[in-house]
């Protein structure tokens, strides 16, 4: 059995082959650097991706809640250190088992200011969001969504409703979360597996 001739009947000259191969590599290089990298990875050294709107493709999609939340200005002022209010209105602690999640909400009136500080013994996935009483879950707004082990700052309620965090422990060991909050809090609600339960505020002594 002989190897069939699988190359061009009129094979190109060495020079033509070399030039062609280099041209193919160059064309591929332009395609990768100019178009594929911006669109797939957001790497845009030539600026073509930005000009053509390709880099947007590489950004992770925002959900509706985040899009609504991103339209707000001045909701959240984060700081490196916990705020120093005259007195904390609430202090709450919970230990989350692996992949356990909890949601803590404060009832706040529109324009209410909330100083807050939470720390966890390991990074927690969180979603800082709010549900307006007028509109409910359908108009939920998310202001910050990430995985962090602490968060401090001042929060400004954009409307009267429930405001607070969803946390999930995405590690394989227990994580203890402590939150303190100060402000005109009118009530507090816990959501476990989506089931709400009212809780009393427990200020630190």
């Amino acid at each position: 059995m002989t190897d069939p001739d699988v190359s061009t009947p009129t094979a190109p000259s060495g020079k033509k082959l070399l030039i062609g191969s280099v041209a193919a590599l160059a064309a591929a290089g332009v395609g990768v650097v100019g178009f594929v990298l911006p669109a797939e990875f957001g790497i845009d050294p030539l600026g073509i991706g930005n000009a053509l709107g390709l880099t947007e493709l590489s950004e992770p999609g925002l959900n509706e809640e985040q899009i609504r939340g991103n339209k707000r200005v001045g909701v959240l002022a984060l700081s490196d250190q916990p705020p120093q209010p005259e007195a904390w209105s609430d202090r709450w602690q919970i230990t989350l088992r692996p992949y356990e999640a909890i949601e803590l909400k404060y009832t706040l009136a529109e324009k209410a200011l909330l100083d807050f500080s939470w720390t966890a013994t390991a990074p927690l996935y969180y979603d800082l969001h709010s549900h307006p009483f007028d509109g409910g879950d359908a108009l939920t707004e998310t202001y910050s969504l990430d995985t962090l082990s602490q968060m401090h700052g001042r929060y400004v309620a954009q409307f009267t409703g429930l405001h607070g965090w969803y946390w999930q422990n995405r590690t394989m060991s227990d994580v203890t979360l402590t939150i303190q909050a100060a402000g005109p809090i009118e009530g507090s609600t816990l959501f476990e597996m989506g089931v709400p339960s009212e809780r009393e505020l427990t200020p630190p002594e």
Partner: protein
Amino acid sequence: MLRWALPLLLLGLLLAADSALAHDISQADRAAVARIEGPAPGAFLYLGAKHMVTGIDHILFLIGVIFFLYRLRDVVIYVTMFTIGHSLTLMGGVLLNTGANAYIVDAIIGFSVVYKAFENLGGFRRLGIAIDTRTAVLVFGLFHGLGLATKVRDLGLSDDGLLVNLISFNIGVEVGQVAVLAVVVTLFNLWRPTRTFAPGAFYANLALMAGGFVLMGYQLTGYFNS
């Protein structure tokens, strides 16, 4: 006018397939598979065929392989080598639960396209390198199978009915391959006797080579970025 129609049609096929550059099992399919427990030969047969038909990397390689195969017997021999190669690593990789980094495997698959195009251009003969083309197709078949195995493992198959589902997926891959080949072989048979084939073949293989380089660049960037 008409003599340019076929090369243009082939080019159109390439561009259409380009939208499948990000060659993964789609999110919807992934969610569907996650719900499947037990044997589901129909679903996996379809997924295997779909993976092959929408996979630009496999299609480019197949185009390269049959570019200059004039006789049906040669087409069958080469495609059999490719099938043996990818079936071995697809079945073996999933059953033994071993796999390689998906980016590296996909970069090698991209390289297989570059290799085949360069060989078609007579590059290796000119460099004085003699590589048995059938062995090369078999070896690259092994890598293509490794890539398929990684994709199947990504689906997170349950052990219940694994063998049936895996064999179904593999048969689906072959069905998809035959579907792709039927189109490509037909188009080549129509293009080859025309006067544009000889000059067009040079540029077509350079285009194949460029496509392979793009796949390599994409996958290698993914590897170093992850």
